[in-house]
């Protein structure tokens, strides 16, 4: 028998309904054996046309919809949107509101990164850590629901400030949280850094070099993992971030492990900022005097924030005639980070692609909008 064994390329659809896609996306992978030759992400399953809806709603009414983009971290979405409208209106926000905004954004970042760690663990088969991550994230969500009445979709920021002041006892709850979380994170360290299986799965997988990352428009922890110390909070400060003392976490390798490391260590930086935020919290109003009907003069505004997943920006055009935006455009970090994924996932085997995909931390509500 000298019959030749025939081989052929194989197309595998990962998703749209698959736990490791973190929502509904589809990765069309072309395989040779188990090696990936090509990946094409197919998106749009969650497309709700939020940008068009934005043109047909008043400025205030669009705010709850921003929650529904990156639904893991809605507070930063609120923040980016109100910053853009405030830029159009030229409103000064009271100091108390600014401090609270920074504090809330950082609490949100902690929640997001804990969620990331949980989901990352689950994708690698580490189910214990998934429970850990969700458990600790709930501590943040408790703080948020004490404040806003909601676990996930807060709709708490307003043009010119915040919806209302923090309730009695909230600040001391935050202090308790600041004390409790670092102890819990010690368990995480033991779980991850002493775990040979985990390290084998993530070290050296999906390497993204700094030069490519910049060219592909990658931002946030993924970019910092490649060694670029870029953080909107430092480089183009908004709100009161220039008054806070914190470090920008970077790594060198740009692999899946670095991306995990950056996020894990950012939790500590966020804790630092939250601590400073509640210590320095001044007395006063939490919302500026804003006209009842928001009708900004004609112009354009582009506001950027460092969302937990990267650079989030709103581009708003006002024609000056109506109380509705002429155009709302969202630059979501997940959208750009996902668009870069095919370039550095090619050549890996399927289990590495899953680990790699989990490490870029996307949320499909924001990719599809």
């Amino acid at each position, binding site marked *: 028998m000298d019959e030749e064994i025939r081989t052929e390329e194989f197309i595998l659809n990962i998703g749209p309904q698959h736990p490791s896609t973190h929502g509904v996306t589809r990765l069309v992978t072309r395989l040779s054996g188990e090696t990936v030759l090509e990946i094409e992400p197919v*998106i*749009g399953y969650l*497309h709700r*046309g939020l*940008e*068009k809806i934005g*043109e*047909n709603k008043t400025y205030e009414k669009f705010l709850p919809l921003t929650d529904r983009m990156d639904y893991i971290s809605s507070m930063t979405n609120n923040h980016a949107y109100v910053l853009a409208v405030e830029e159009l209106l030229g409103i000064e926000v009271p100091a108390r509101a600014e401090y609270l905004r920074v504090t809330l954004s950082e609490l949100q970042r902690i929640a997001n990164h804990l969620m990331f760690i949980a989901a990352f663990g689950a994708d690698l088969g580490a189910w214990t850590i998934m429970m850990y991550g969700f458990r600790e994230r709930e501590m943040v969500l408790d703080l948020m629901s004490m404040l806003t009445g909601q676990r996930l979709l807060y709709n708490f920021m307003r043009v010119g400030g915040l919806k209302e002041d923090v309730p009695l006892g909230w600040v001391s709850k935050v202090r308790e949280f600041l004390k409790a979380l670092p102890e819990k994170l010690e368990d995480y360290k033991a779980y991850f850094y002493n775990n040979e299986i985990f390290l084998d799965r993530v070290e050296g997988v999906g390497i993204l070099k700094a030069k*490519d990352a*910049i*060219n*592909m*428009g*990658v*931002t946030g922890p993924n970019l910092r993992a490649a060694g*670029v110390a*870029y953080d909107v909070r430092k*480089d*183009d400060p908004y709100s009161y971030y220039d008054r806070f003392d914190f470090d920008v976490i970077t790594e060198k390798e740009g692999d899946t492990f670095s991306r995990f490391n950056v996020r894990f260590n950012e939790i500590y930086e966020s804790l630092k900022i939250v601590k400073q935020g509640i210590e320095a919290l001044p007395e006063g109003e939490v919302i500026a005097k804003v006209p009842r009907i928001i009708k900004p003069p004609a112009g*354009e505004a*582009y506001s*950027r924030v460092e969302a937990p997943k990267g*650079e989030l*920006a709103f*581009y708003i*055009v006002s024609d000056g005639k109506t109380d509705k935006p*002429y*155009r709302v*455009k969202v*630059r979501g970090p997940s*959208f*750009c980070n996902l*668009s*870069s994924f095919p*370039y550095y996932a090619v050549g890996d085997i399927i289990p590495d692609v899953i680990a790699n995909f989990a490490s870029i931390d996307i949320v499909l509500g924001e990719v*599809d*909008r």
Partner: protein
Amino acid sequence: MTENKQELTHEVLEELKSEFGDKIVEAEVKRKTRLRIKINGENVFDIADYLKNKLDFDHLSSIASVDYPETFEVVYHIWSYPRKILIQVNALVDKESARIKSLTPLWKSADWHEREVYDMMGIIFEGHPNLKRIFLPEDFKGYPLRKDFKIGPKPWYKED
């Protein structure tokens, strides 16, 4: 420091003006790290190339599009990591032809941004390797972000 920054932003603007002259229709420094220029669509590639390779504007942050009554505008936001300045380039695009050059040879990130603009606004990017709809299904009719797009009742919804 802030004074210094403002000067740097002006410097970039002066350099652009001396290189491209009246190809830049409008220019202003919006605030200390924000620069805005308006250009005609046919010059976009040359100016973007110059921005990227000569002036270190290396991060194409986003591509938006706006439908004005007389013209389309494609709006590029480009950030410079070394200079820490954001430039906003408004490129005017003719409504009849709705064509502009693709920036994909310069930035890989332009790929999806341009597909999104094509999908939503129907502007064609010449030289894009894979220009097809990104969010909406392939057989979708019309471009939803154009102002003349009618939001009507759902075609599949019938009242009894």
